[in-house]
């Protein structure tokens, strides 16, 4: 009952599943056959899965065999970092200090167990990573640079093309980018990277689904060693229903950007204007950040604010949801010199309206007035 009046402002944490995607996925779940089976029904599943792979490759302007289905971007990030580190057994990686935990933790592990050296670059004031810093950090033994395209906590957009250029001009290192938050919001150009990670559930798709783009000739060690699936890069029976419906999910996300791009920009500006009118609110997101994601600081502690808004059916988050139950302060915000104890992240998609934003602003103000100390 209450659900209808709820306001979902945590879109970048995960998105509502698209009705058509859900219907197709539900239908596909009934085709339980193993996609590697040789009888007709198995082959049909296989054919559809490979058609999905082909379509995804076409939509992103890459080759069919460069799309590797995974359980999501976290797995794709791990596959890149650990898969390459296993081959190198030493050497150097460059990353940023505000990557998603799946990059951050994987880097810690390869440093600890494989002796890989890691350089973490801090963002500039505007929240982006300076390509010059990347250039200066490159070493002879740097084999990987991994820098996200859109930061998931403040929405800063990195100049992937410029970073790619300094790497290719100065070193042999491969360039990987976690593009999870960029898909459906920014123009994606995979020519600018060697590898990129994506998740379905951030673009109205199903959970446990995503893919890695990996340029054809890059060798990488699998993390799950088993059968022939995913070009021997990810063993285990394929999650075919999710893999098949991923093409539709991405197609609709790209279309959504086309259809609602300017609406989202307008809504984003409107939300910024309204927030700027509240004296005690500081906007942490850069001016030219991704639309639909705004990070702010208020005089009320994050946890209190989340609880207070939740009582009114408004769902927001503090730091990245993946670290929400840990005491550690957000490393993104730390990197940006923002006190994460008072930070709030609001994010939305095209189903958001000005009216709903007004309601959020109203309760935000009320909570500040009542609980700011």
């Amino acid at each position, binding site marked *: 009952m209450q659900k209808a009046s709820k306001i979902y402002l945590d879109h970048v944490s995960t998105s509502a599943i698209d009705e058509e995607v859900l219907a*197709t996925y539900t239908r596909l779940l009934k085709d339980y056959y193993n996609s590697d089976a040789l009888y*007709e029904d198995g082959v*049909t599943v296989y054919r*559809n899965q490979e*058609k999905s792979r082909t*379509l995804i490759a076409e939509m992103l302007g890459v080759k069919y065999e460069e799309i590797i289905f995974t359980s999501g971007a976290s797995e794709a990030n791990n596959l890149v970092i650990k898969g390459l580190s296993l081959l190198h057994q030493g050497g150097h990686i460059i990353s940023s200090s505000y990557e998603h935990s799946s990059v951050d933790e994987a880097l810690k592990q390869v440093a600890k167990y494989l002796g890989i050296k890691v350089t973490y670059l801090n963002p500039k004031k505007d929240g982006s990573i300076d390509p010059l810093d990347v250039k200066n950090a490159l070493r002879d033994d740097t084999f990987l640079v991994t820098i996200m395209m859109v930061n998931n906590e403040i929405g800063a957009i990195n100049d992937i093309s410029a970073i790619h250029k300094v790497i290719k001009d100065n070193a042999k290192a491969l360039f990987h980018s976690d593009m999870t938050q960029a898909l459906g919001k920014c123009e994606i150009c995979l020519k600018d990277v060697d590898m990129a990670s994506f998740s379905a559930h951030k673009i109205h798709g199903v959970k446990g689904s995503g893919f890695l783009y990996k340029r054809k000739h890059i060798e990488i060690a699998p993390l799950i060693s088993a059968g022939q699936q995913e070009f021997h890069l990810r063993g285990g029976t394929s999650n075919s229903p999710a893999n*098949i419906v991923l093409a*539709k999910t991405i197609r609709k996300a790209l279309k959504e950007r086309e259809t609602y791009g300017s609406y989202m920009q307008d809504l984003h500006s409107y939300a910024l204007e309204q927030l700027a009118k509240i004296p005690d609110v500081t906007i942490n997101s850069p001016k030219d950040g991704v639309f639909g994601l705004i990070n702010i600081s208020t005089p009320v502690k994050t946890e209190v604010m989340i609880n207070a808004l939740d009582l009114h059916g408004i769902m927001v988050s503090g730091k990245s949801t993946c670290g929400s139950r840990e005491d550690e302060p957000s490393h993104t915000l730390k990197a940006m010199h923002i006190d994460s104890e008072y930070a709030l992240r609001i994010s939305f998609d095209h189903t958001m309206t000005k009216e709903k934003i007004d309601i959020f602003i109203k309760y935000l103000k009320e909570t500040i007035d009542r609980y700011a100390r």
Partner: protein
Amino acid sequence: MQDNTYDYILCRFGELTTKGKNRKDFINRLLINIKERLKTFSGLTYEKTHDAIYIHLNGEDYEKVCARLHTVYGLSNYSGAIRCSRDIEEVKKKALLLASKRDYQTFKVNARRSDKNYPLDSDTINRTVAAHILKNSSLKVDVHRPDLMIYIIVKEDRIYLLDEKVVAIGGYPVGINGKALIMMSGGIDSPVAASMMMKRGLKIECLHFASMPYTSKQALDKVLTLIKKLTAYQSEIKIHVVPFTDLQLAIYDHTDESYAITILRRMMYRIADIICNRRHIMTIANGESIGQVASQTPESLTVIGSCAKHLIIRPLACLDKIEIIDMAKELDTYETSILPYEDCCTIFSPKNPVTKPHEDKCLYYESKFDYAALIEDCVANIETITISSDDIDEEDDLF
């Protein structure tokens, strides 16, 4: 973004113009084929003159219609056209529009009057229109090699402005030269051969030999997928699927291994011959290319081909494999063709197939079993499937 510059597409015939008294049939067939290919664009109307077909766009998307025109054999080239009144001011205005459309540096105006009573002569039209473009854009005139040539055609009641000529796929309209039976294995070659036959104006039917369970259902599906791709050029294609297993097993039981493929191919041609008679088809065609495999040496082709009374055309006979692959890619059949399913020629393939077979030896092996009865069985059990470009893949809504 839809391009709304053009009112018409002017289609030219190319080879058809050489065809004297049959011209009318050619043009009629081409118009039928064009209409068939474009039938999903419900707004289009057509006008036929002695030297061209005009497609009136009526608001349909120019680019999309053109993309489809590139699958019509017999169409030599076409131009986007704007229709104007005979008012020179309107012609000037619309010519400027054409000139500003893309990033051209140079242009030339080429007027032709089919109505000689028009008050301005061709040269005056050229100069008037060119002057207007020069004055209102940064383009320069280049009479030798212009980036853009604007053709102006003056008719009794209207004037056409034509954009540059776009080269189409040429050839003859499918159907004007009768029918061909294509032996279709599922490999790279046969779809290319099929397209070349269509380009020469032959309407195709296909013949496929299935040896289940030695060949799989997927192998047949692959052939059907290939034919579906060919329906981009001929809207409806029939395929006759021959159950070949028993005959094939009999061949292996009664002939020396080295001759097995030779005899197998001879049986295929015999069956093709029967289908041609039944379906009133004049020509047999396939993807054989000289020297490609043992059964395609000149000696083999002679011995194998002697079993058929109908004309045999091997469009790929003199092409390199690499050329054939390029054509298959162009045709969008390559990726399907290389799917790794066994076909009836690859199962039980002999270690040392004969490259210079003798006909007497073939006759000797063939005398050892009653192949005629087996052929009769094959033909009696043929399954004919019609594939149409309209067939929609029911799984398409998954994506």
